[in-house]
């Protein structure tokens, strides 16, 4: 699970709020235009300053090209631009995992991931988990074991679980608990979710 830090600066503006606000806020208007097309120095070397950028994503197996602002999150692009509303906006700041999608097979919080960073990558959302009408074993198991209640956090749990079971096909209960600890279920159905993950693992192993 990619963990993005959201530490508050002493002035009370988080790094992420700052980046999100740059495109449209007064600061952005004042600072950005002279730098557009240039590069600026960062700890990781010089990076280009974009206004808008055209990115190409492979979303659930299909190529999508679209022009995004540098401050748009992957979650907003998926939900608002590509009409993939399976990933949910629950906390919008990397605290709950409700927006978890797979990026080149690894789970990320889409609300904390800028869309421009996903350029050229493969994105899998809950809409891409089933093959046609055939549900993924993880989806089947969550229905069988009643691994959810309201279902709002479920897409995130399903994506985390599917990636986890690829890496660990026969997990122990403690490993399941660890793997899911970045996803919150407010209905509190964790005890049922463990059973669903275990059942999914068995199905995937063909056991």
């Amino acid at each position, binding site marked *: 699970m990619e963990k993005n830090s959201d530490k508050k600066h002493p002035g009370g503006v988080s790094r992420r709020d700052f980046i999100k606000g740059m495109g449209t806020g007064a600061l952005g208007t004042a600072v950005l235009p002279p730098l557009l097309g240039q590069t600026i120095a960062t700890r990781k070397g010089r990076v280009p300053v974009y206004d808008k950028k055209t990115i190409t994503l492979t979303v659930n197996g299909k190529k999508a090209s679209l022009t995004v602002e540098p401050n748009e999150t992957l979650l907003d692009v998926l939900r608002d631009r590509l*009409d993939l*509303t399976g990933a949910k906006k629950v906390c919008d700041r990397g605290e709950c995992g409700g927006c978890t999608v797979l990026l080149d097979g690894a789970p990320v919080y889409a609300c904390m991931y800028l869309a421009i960073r996903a350029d050229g990558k493969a994105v899998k959302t809950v809409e891409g988990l089933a093959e046609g009408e055939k549900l993924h074993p993880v989806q089947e198991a969550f229905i069988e074991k009643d691994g959810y209640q309201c279902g709002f956090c479920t897409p995130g749990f399903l994506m985390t679980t599917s990636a986890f079971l690829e890496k660990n096909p026969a997990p122990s209960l403690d490993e399941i608990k*660890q793997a899911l600890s970045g996803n919150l279920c407010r209905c509190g159905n964790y005890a049922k979710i463990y059973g669903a993950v275990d059942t999914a693992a068995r199905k995937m192993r063909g056991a």
Partner: protein
Amino acid sequence: MNAKDYMAEARGQAAKPQGPVKAAAAKPAAPPPEAKAPEYRHIGKPTRRIDGREVVTGRAAYTQDIKLRDMLIGKILRSPHAAAEVLSIDLAPALALPGVFAALKLAESKVRYAGQQVAAVAAVDERTAEKALSRINVEYKTLPYVVDWEKARDASAPQVRDGKGNVEKFNEYSRGDVEKGFAEADVVVERTYRTAFEIHNPAETHGSVAYWEGDHLVVYDSTQNVHGVRDGLARALKVPAANVTVIKKYMGGGFGSKLGLNEQTVAAANLARETRRPVKILLSRRDNAVCVGYRPSSLQTYKVGAKKDGSLTAFSLVNYASGGVGAGDEVSEPVVDIYKCPNCKVEEFTVFTNTGASRATRAPGHTQGALGLEGVMDELAAALDMDPLELRKKNYSTRNLGDTGLPYSTKGLDTCYELGAKAIGWERRNRKPGDGSGPVRRGIGVATSIWFGAGVPGTLADVVLYPDMSVEVVCGTQDLGTGTRTHMAVVAAETLGLEPKDITVKLGNSDYPWAPLSGGSLTTPSVAPAVRDAALKAVDRLKAVAAARLKVAADDVAMGDRKFFAKSAPEKTVAFADVYRDLRRETPFHGERTGYPGDAYAFNTFGAHFAEVEVNVETGRIRVLRYAAAHDSGQIINKLTAESQVVGAVTQGLSAGLFEERVMDDTTGNPVNPNLRDYKIATSLDIPEITPIFVDVVDTRLNNLGAKGLGEPPRIPSSAAIANAVYNAIGVHVREIPMTPQRVLAALKRKGAGS
């Protein structure tokens, strides 16, 4: 909806005046009080949710996912000040911004809490709407405020309400003579317990999408109450209720915070009216901590007297609750009701502060009350040197109001005690609290639940049969994730001799037949009997049609294996498909929930929870190791989703017991933890093995299925059972939730000091 209305609804009183109910009450059925559970094919068995595929594929449309053509995004500007006069609001700079379609003033002359709505805008997208909010000029004159409820009790504290004090008595109750009762007691124990402000924080924040079709308003709302929101909107917008439709397809949790009309729904409807375009307003996670309620705090002082043998002689309770600018919760229902005690006196006060109003939170008042009452019962047991479970059994009541009121129609609490104790291994507990040694101590605790859950007579549902053998069940109720859709299918399928997957369920729309709000654990006992009633009528019609085909009398017709047959000549059969085809058009059957002779019996739900914990006395950290939850909620409709209700409620109780607390900042008047990082809720790492147990006590007096509610009962004793287990482990009751390591260590210090 305020707590008082909610509790009336929970007790099943709201719909009492309705016509047909009276007729039913006039001749109460008198079946045997505890009928044995009938043999069913689906009811009471585990059934997978019929909407599972929608949810796990991401196709289920929640209010957050609704997107309509030309839809605008609305945003609400909120007061940063806990108390201020609003001198002026200038919307012009916002309206001048390209992409902004409308702006509204929402604040009246004063704001009384930080987060109160001030103005709203509708714009072409979220960013433009946010920018527009920042352009609105509001001139405030800040006023003194108080957000700390204990400081608000001082006479010198700023007054939250103009010209009225901050402390107000809102409940008192008395029976018998408590002074006499305490004088007769061999042992008297007096203790004070505290509970914190808990935020509902449903996964889906509150949100609405509103649009107008001519003079008809349509609203998608994340709500527990489509009919209530419809009526509220009609009043707020001054339009006929018949011209308003409220739709809730799927919702991401509510827990009581979505029972009534929300301000953002009214704002969306008004902005939609002005712009003639659909308007969507979603609240932010932060909004959930400031303006859509929370569970009120409590400070409960109990005094209890008992004879040496454990029989209770008197109870008194004084409670101070705080619900911000709203009301506190009554926490006294458990102490008034559950244990046999002739003398009881209660006084409850609410303390007003400059924070948003509280709202009903899953089992309002009862969870707080259980923490205090069950805590003092355990401390009394220790003072009497008695087994805490024996003390509870010693004072077991069969009538409400402490054995002085109406007889309980059914009460399976004794079985709950028995099965729960067996499941946890009650005999393994410390004989005396704190008997163990070493840095990590184990303990086992018990706590009791009483709740309403009788449902609301007058609830309506339709079963519609189609000539192609499809079956539709329609009811204007809500599925909050509790599994209502599947319950409706289970009951219809059971009655019609079909499978749950054969049934098409329609709910979550105020144009459908009336059902009450989904709160108070009343959905299943209201809706399931109405569906049963409609389906039984449908079966009667089908049998009559089959009788004509079979050329026998209708009462000679039986069904099985998707066929009707003559009982007198079983070889004479006709397939379901032929009989449905003979209906020739879709045929509706209207069902109603009746029953409920509430003047002769008390109808309640019961439960007993048992927790085993481990406490590190050096770090103060608590781990819950094992948990058993036994419930009498009458006939269970779907065992699979019923188990989820219990598991979820136990988890929420664990979360509140160990982690959850909204903290207000005195210096800004705002919460310091309005998010999911600093407001801690339980994660997968905190959850023990949980064993749900259902004792099948079918209450046939109550309704045609003997079903009662289950949503709230398992939430009631879950923090309390853990607190009592901690007491059993370390020999001192923490007496305050959440039981943070700091509070556990403070309690141990108190024990060391011998108090």
